[in-house]
């Protein structure tokens, strides 16, 4: 029984179906329960959150990643799957906390002050959530002091800063300076991204990494975990 439902959850992750209202790719699944409903069913059948994450969610995302790398899947497919997994993780997170199972880490993400562009930031947030990170997206045009407050209060492992414009990218440097001034810099890894910035700029302002996209962000985070 548990294997059956885990397989169905995995298939729905691959299909990118969060709820029964989502279409996915295989039309035959239309109207059937999606990842959210199936996760609840699995929990009510006493299947452990760890098993659901490992055998259904993570396993499904691995297949999605393979399909993406062979260009069978595109970013909208990846995002749909990641969104479904992220939603399931929201249900599972409180249960994991109760059992002292650690998540991959907390990630606060923001588009810096003066910049309202958020497509890239949103995509990164969805992908990270789908990859198992606890993501707090604090929005666009976020002032430096708000970012500092969130870092101080939530103590995230990672801070992601996004900027599209050459006129707003300088805010990233200000945030990093403020982190140092508030003795927070060594408590959080800072990742920057966006069309305006580069690896060179990341080094220049003292960020820990520059990421071209969400997929690279996941790789960078995995690299941090290994170290």
């Amino acid at each position, binding site marked *: 029984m548990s294997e059956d439902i885990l397989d169905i959850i995995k298939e729905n992750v691959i299909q*990118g179906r969060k709820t029964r209202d989502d279409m996915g*790719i295989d039309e035959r699944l239309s109207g059937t329960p999606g990842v959210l409903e199936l996760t609840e069913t699995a929990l009510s059948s006493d299947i452990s959150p760890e098993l659901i994450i490992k055998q259904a969610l993570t396993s499904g995302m691995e297949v999605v990643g393979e399909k993406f790398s062979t260009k069978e899947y*595109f970013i*909208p497919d990846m995002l*749909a799957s990641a969104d479904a997994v992220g939603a399931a993780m929201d249900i599972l997170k409180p249960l994991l906390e109760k059992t002292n199972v650690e998540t991959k880490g907390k990630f606060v993400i923001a588009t810096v002050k003066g910049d309202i562009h*958020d*497509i890239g930031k949103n995509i990164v947030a969805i992908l990270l959530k789908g990859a198992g990170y606890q993501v707090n*997206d604090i929005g666009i045009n976020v002032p430096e002091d708000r970012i500092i407050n969130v870092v101080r209060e939530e103590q995230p492992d990672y801070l992601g800063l996004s900027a599209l414009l050459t006129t707003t990218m300088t805010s990233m440097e200000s945030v990093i300076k403020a982190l140092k001034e508030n003795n927070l810099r060594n408590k959080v890894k800072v990742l920057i991204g966006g069309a305006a910035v580069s690896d060179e700029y990341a080094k220049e302002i003292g960020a820990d990494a520059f990421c071209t996209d969400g997929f690279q962000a996941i790789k960078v985070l995995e690299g941090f975990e290994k170290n």
Partner: protein
Amino acid sequence: MPREGILINKPIERLSGEQIRLIHDASIEILTNPGLLCFNKKAAEIFQSHGAGVAGVTGSDTPCWHVKIPEKLVSDALDSAPRMVTLGARNPDNVLIMKGDEPRVFFITGSETNIWLDVDFSTYVNKADPTKEVKLPEFQPRRGMVADLCDSAHVCEHLETIDGYIRTVNIQDKDITEDNKDVNKFFACLNNTTKHVMSGLTSLKQLDNVIKMAEIIAGGSTKLKENPLISFITCLVKSPLQFVDDTTETFMEVCKRGLPIVVSSSPQAGTSAPIKEAGIMAQINAEVLAGITLGQLVNKGTPVLYGSVPVRARMDTLGDSYGSVETSQYHVDCTQMARFYNLPNYSTSGVCDTKTPGQQSSIERLFSDIVVALSGPQFLHCAFGLLDCNSVFCLLQAVLDDAHFQMIKFFLKSPRIDEQELDTVKKQIREVVATPQKMFINYIRPVMRSGEISPPYPFEGDGESDSVFALANERLQALRAKPVEHIDPDTTARIFREIPGLLPRLNVYKGESKS
């Protein structure tokens, strides 16, 4: 079901209605003053017997007549020429139906080149950093052979954007002669593609053998008339305003047999036609009208295409400059003229001046492909794979062109904007603006695999290296590996029994034949 082509809802136009009328009037005037020189006696006699002014030209090295074609003959011909021309095919799904008043574009290969361009890839290593290497194509020109024509027809069969096939390469094998070239080139084409096949004729003596071959394939003469799987193209009028003896003879003989034929004229602005747009337009239109008139006088109702291949001269060599912007302007003008007469138009695009595939080739051909296609010619001879004007054919370029035409065809799709569609998207907008992320990505997926989103450029590489040629070559090899839908063994055996001059090596069932 015939092929759909692409219907251009709003064809681009350069000429106003008044300008079209002015060109028409000028052409009619040119047909009597100065009229045409006719080097074909039968044609001169036909014109004379129908009331044209015909007078022998004295002092000419070859027999020649001065022909003045009155407007009435032209208007009668325009009345009797069919408004709709069907170009048949071995596969009924590949039939092309061209209506003079409907700007539905079909994309067709051609023309016949002497040189076949082989492609090979070599690896180059960076002297400063030997770990860096790139693969670059090397192009090797050589004489075209019948095996190349088979190869080309086979690949074009599998390129979905190609609607029909004009032979792409002149077959110059040692055992090909003037007396067997036509049967072999038509057989090589017909045996390797199920799409419509058009060609010029090298020797009039071969016309009936070619037609007989087509009749055997179609299932008889009546079936061939119903499904004319071959058609012909002749440039019977040499610019300026001269009926050439042999091609006029060929043209008249094809007309007598009632198969579709393109009346083509190819003046060069600056040398064989005035450099001014008004001049080349008035002249080419007169030349095509003269050909159409002769065709209808020979056999009323002969299916003809208004064929226009105008080109501007290069200023540095006075050779053809198909890549010039004016050449595309002339073609758009000619398409408008053909539509004015309600006749299907054979037009040209994609011919470039450069000798090898590359940036110049892509820019020149894509520019004319887009603008000429948008003007809505029915038969767009879009020079798949052609380079160096009409001299070189390269299959790699044909594969690259296919990608261009996928884009153009997608662009030409009719917009889907109706109340139902707008209701759907208004609902989406309301739903999305109420979400924190405000993104429409979830709605991409249902349309992503439905063909509503244009595919990415198929030869896009990874990273910062240009992989276009290498990826196009991979596709070319994949196309070559696809099966060939040959003519069936019994029909092939009958063709080889009854049609003289066919090269035995073209019989793919050699040794398997029942006969």
